[in-house]
């Protein structure tokens, strides 16, 4: 099992007779917990790491961005994967389109056709995009991109300015398309043991479809559609 040596900083502070960091700092409102391990998290530390945003806007920072500003950022950082108009490239996701397709044979789940909350767009761009350089955009750039992608989906007008007041007001087209309770189990079978069906018909077989990568030898880089 791995174990960690004492942090040099701790050793140094112990040597210098400074109070160990695992003890509650002077003036902390709360006494330590039962174990008292770790260090109290300061407001500054929490603010720096607490990046999540909720549908009600909780977590959205100051700043703002327009649709036009977003277009410039998008062309630089996003269009190579997501396409100039959010149509997607290769297997990278579409961001726009697919309106009314959710009941079709091949549904297209995009920000406009599927995503229930606009806050998720800000949150996800900010935490995970651009794919090759996550968390490299400024808050203003994220606001601008959010405005632009919403506009690509005809959810906001071209003069929309995204900020912490306007974004929670945006009603997404598929907002009411979800139930947030698990209906399962939806199949309730009896445990039949004998004569459970009239007939058995094979409807499909994977034989001869040539979609299966090799399961022996070196990794199969071969089949790409």
């Amino acid at each position: 099992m791995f174990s960690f040596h004492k942090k040099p900083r701790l050793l140094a502070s112990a040597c210098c007779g400074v109070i160990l960091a695992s003890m509650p700092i002077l003036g902390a409102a709360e006494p330590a917990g039962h174990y008292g391990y770790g260090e109290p998290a300061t407001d500054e530390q929490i603010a720096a790491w607490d990046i999540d945003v909720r549908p009600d806007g909780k977590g959205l920072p100051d700043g703002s961005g327009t649709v036009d500003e977003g277009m410039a950022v998008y062309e630089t950082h996003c269009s190579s994967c997501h396409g100039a108009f959010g149509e997607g490239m290769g297997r990278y996701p579409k961001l726009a389109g697919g309106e009314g397709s959710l009941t079709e044979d091949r549904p297209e789940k995009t920000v406009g056709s599927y995503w229930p909350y606009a806050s998720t767009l800000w949150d996800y761009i900010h935490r995970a995009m651009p794919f090759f350089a996550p968390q490299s955009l400024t808050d203003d750039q994220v606001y601008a991109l959010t405005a632009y992608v919403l506009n690509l989906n005809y959810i906001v007008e071209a003069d929309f300015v995204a900020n912490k007041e306007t974004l929670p007001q945006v009603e997404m087209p598929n907002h009411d398309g979800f139930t947030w309770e698990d209906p399962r189990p939806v199949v309730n079978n009896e445990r039949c043991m004998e004569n459970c069906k009239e007939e058995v018909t094979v409807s499909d077989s994977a034989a001869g479809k040539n979609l299966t990568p090799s399961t022996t030898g070196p990794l199969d880089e071969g089949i790409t559609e």
Partner: protein
Amino acid sequence: MLGKLRRLNQDASKIALEESERLPSEERRRFLRSGLFTAGGAMVGGALAGIAPKALASTQYPPEIPPWTRSLGPGVVTDPYGVPSPFEKDVIRRNVPWLTADKVSSISFTPLQHLKGIITPNGLFFERHHAGRPEIDPQQHRLMIHGLVDRPIILSMEDLQRFPSVSQINFIECPANGGMEWRGAQLNSLQFLHGMVSCAEWTGVRLSTLLQEVGIKPEGKWLLAEGADGAAMTRSIPLEKALDDVIVAYAQNGEALRREQGYPIRLVVPGWEGNTHVKWLRRLEVGDKPWMQREETSKYTDLMPDGTAHGFTWVMEAKSVITSPCPEMPLTNKGVCQIEGLAWSGRGKVKAVDVSVDGGQNWQQAQLREPVMSKSLTRFSLEWKWDGNPALLQSRVIDETGYVQPTLAQLKQARGTNSIYHKNAIQTWKVNGDGSVVNVQLS
């Protein structure tokens, strides 16, 4: 002396090749033809590694005495960290290149056809990354716990390991396991059809211990878990589950987590979809509402035929699959054989597994192999006398809640073919007269 030892310490394949030099020419040809050696003398997969026994040449041992019996092998710490035999080199995780845009945000599959117990070796545990596998120095890694708590804290990995620890054996399954087969049979492989499930012993700290330490405010109802990878992956988890059986794990099968499993720490959320088991865990926030993150809205929601979708479908319903025979492990002989497989349920223990050899018309109860544990893989087996005729093999699990594993037709009836996730349907293997096994679907 040392030189003599070094000379003796050559690896077995070289000795065996030299040995073959001394064979009469016809025997030597047969030996090289046996398929155990490539032209370069490298070993290729052996009996355990999924090569049908009939494909292996017969051996001259006995009566011949093999070279490894008449020589010394390498000494201790030749491999300071042990590695599998070269004869097992086909037993690896594999991916489906056409499935994802790249390998950085993708998935690999566990070779279930080669695994014999319920524990997945750490090097074969399936992988799912959203932004590749981060390389994290545990000295630099921190876990922050904050939000609606009395005492927000930051823990080093050393701090975390001072808390009381627990161990539990749990499977982790991606809810997209089998998701490529909603519209028909596509893949002819156990590994690619069902390999997004693995099982390990996890050791770490109960999340309830950590949450008690920081003190949850009365209005706290939800927990957000966040990873430190380039996707900063997040999921909302209800506090009720968080306080039940979730752990912050730092060990997997007795050693530190593998990097691809979240080193230095990950969440383990027993029985729930793999995506909730956040890896490279850096932050836990208590809140009063769910966060509606990308991974629980745009993804991991189940689209129904009427265009609506079900979210927060966390639990992995009971599922089973026959692992032997399977497409990679055909039947080689008529007569008595053991049908073996794995069963599991996100709702608790496996109560029973039934096996059918006639496509689900009639069923026999299989034997469960100990240990049978909650939210863990469970082995089953049934002895079967194969007469050489084609057969349709199925397994069906019943879990402790009484839930009976459904057929694919039933799931499609209930949910259409576009829900992607949570396809826990009965798998049908068609055994052909020559013993080969094919993935088929029944109407």
